[in-house]
């Protein structure tokens, strides 16, 4: 971050207090009192979430889920949540833990298998579920982060998903109008962050995380590694810090594998 010094306000260009190059230079941090986006833990970062809040939770299956944030939500006991998340976890991990604690009122997902408690609550009417095509889910998140109120997608045309929705033809093909999501909080899992909130994701743990990070009114990123500003190559940042309000450094990630498949050696 920079501290401009107006020593020469009438000069022809911007003035920097010393002659060093700051271009991708990770060794410097001139600011003695940086803006603090870093929270001690997930409990602190989620302290103000109220009952009835709408949350986005990143991840695909159990891959790239904000597991420390979920644990903190369970500890906090906040209830009547609407959760926008591609999946609903398994019985004893991921959003499944919040379902066990009966904290979720509504799930907005594309696929909710692999969860017996989910099924029980759904059949008993405790839980509401809205199923959305996966690409529609992703693009409605993106729309929010990109300030677009709605998008058109062909997914679901002619199906139950289209019921009650406006459809429209463009170039001879029919599309559904789908609204951008609004979420009070987005809870995402990143690989690395700097304290400005710049985020980098790893492999397919990226999935919905960057989209939700850009969509949340308040975005909480839990990360595996926290680095100094400048340590991340600015060309490789997936989510610029402007979208991220709170950062938590997580430790001892469980990262449970849902389907452990391995290669069979030729016999």
């Amino acid at each position: 971050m920079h501290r401009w010094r107006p020593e020469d306000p009438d000069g022809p260009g911007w003035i920097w207090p010393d002659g060093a190059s700051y271009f991708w230079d990770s060794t410097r941090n001139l600011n003695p009192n940086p803006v603090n986006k870093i929270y001690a833990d997930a409990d602190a970062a989620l302290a103000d979430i109220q009952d009835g809040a709408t949350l986005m939770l990143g991840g695909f299956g159990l891959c790239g889920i904000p597991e420390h944030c979920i644990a903190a939500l369970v500890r906090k006991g906040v209830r009547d949540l609407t959760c926008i998340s591609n999946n609903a976890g398994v019985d004893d991990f991921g959003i499944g833990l919040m379902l066990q604690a009966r904290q979720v009122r509504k799930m907005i997902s594309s696929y909710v298998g692999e969860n017996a408690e989910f099924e029980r609550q759904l059949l008993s009417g405790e839980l509401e579920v809205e199923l959305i095509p996966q690409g529609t889910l992703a693009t409605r998140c993106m729309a929010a982060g990109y300030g677009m109120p709605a998008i058109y997608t062909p997914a679901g045309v002619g199906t139950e998903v289209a019921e009650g929705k406006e459809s429209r033809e463009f170039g001879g093909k029919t599309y559904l109008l789908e609204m951008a999501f609004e979420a009070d909080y987005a809870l995402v899992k990143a690989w690395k962050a700097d304290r400005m909130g710049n985020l980098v994701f790893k492999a397919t743990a990226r999935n919905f995380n960057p989209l939700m990070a850009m969509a949340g009114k308040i975005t909480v990123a839990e990360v595996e590694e926290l680095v100094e500003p400048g340590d991340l190559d600015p060309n490789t940042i997936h989510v610029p810090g402007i979208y991220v309000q709170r950062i938590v450094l997580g430790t001892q990630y469980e990262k449970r594998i849902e389907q452990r498949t391995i290669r069979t050696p030729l016999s």
Partner: protein
Amino acid sequence: MLDKNGIARTIARELKDGYYVNLGIGIPTLVANFIPSGMEVQLQSENGLLGMGPFPWEGSEDPDLINAGKQTITTLPGSSFFDSAMSFGMIRSGKVDLTVLGAMEVAQNGDIANWKIPGKMVKGMGGAMDLVASARNIVVAMQHVNKAGESKLLPRCTLPITGLACVRKVVTELGVFGFDQEGFVLLERAPGVTCDYIRDKTWGHLSSTGQEPEIQWG
């Protein structure tokens, strides 16, 4: 009759050099085993990967690296990761050359049903509706009849549909089917299966000369 691998091997003949391919869960996944030697095909996994490789060796599984079936996988040189919006962006914009997926029912107009059985717990459509609404070239891999012995190639779908008039080809244990204005068209018979038998098991309209060749894998 074809077994699952026979169905996959038959579908693999659709592959061309340079194709980008999305393979659904189940039989479609097996198509990867039959990509001809020396042919360049890149597999897209809609959770955010192009250039999917085989399963990892035991001990090198990476929980951050899975496919759309949530299986641990690997990548190949030249792969790329992206977010879910870009993944479905490339699907919607028609960049994927071939999409192979399973189905519960296919109608003679190309409608497909593969996500929901009324009265049963609905798990969700995942990416299937996006795929069938956008992909240019959709091949369905499935069994010809269900467990109750009813044909899955129907005049129209009885189950809630996933997408309209989108299937280009169907491969079952009995044969390979295309579409024309009237309905299904028998293109090839599975080894040892007669046209009459196929006609009997196909409840949708089926065009057949009675002279269709047996499937060859070349």
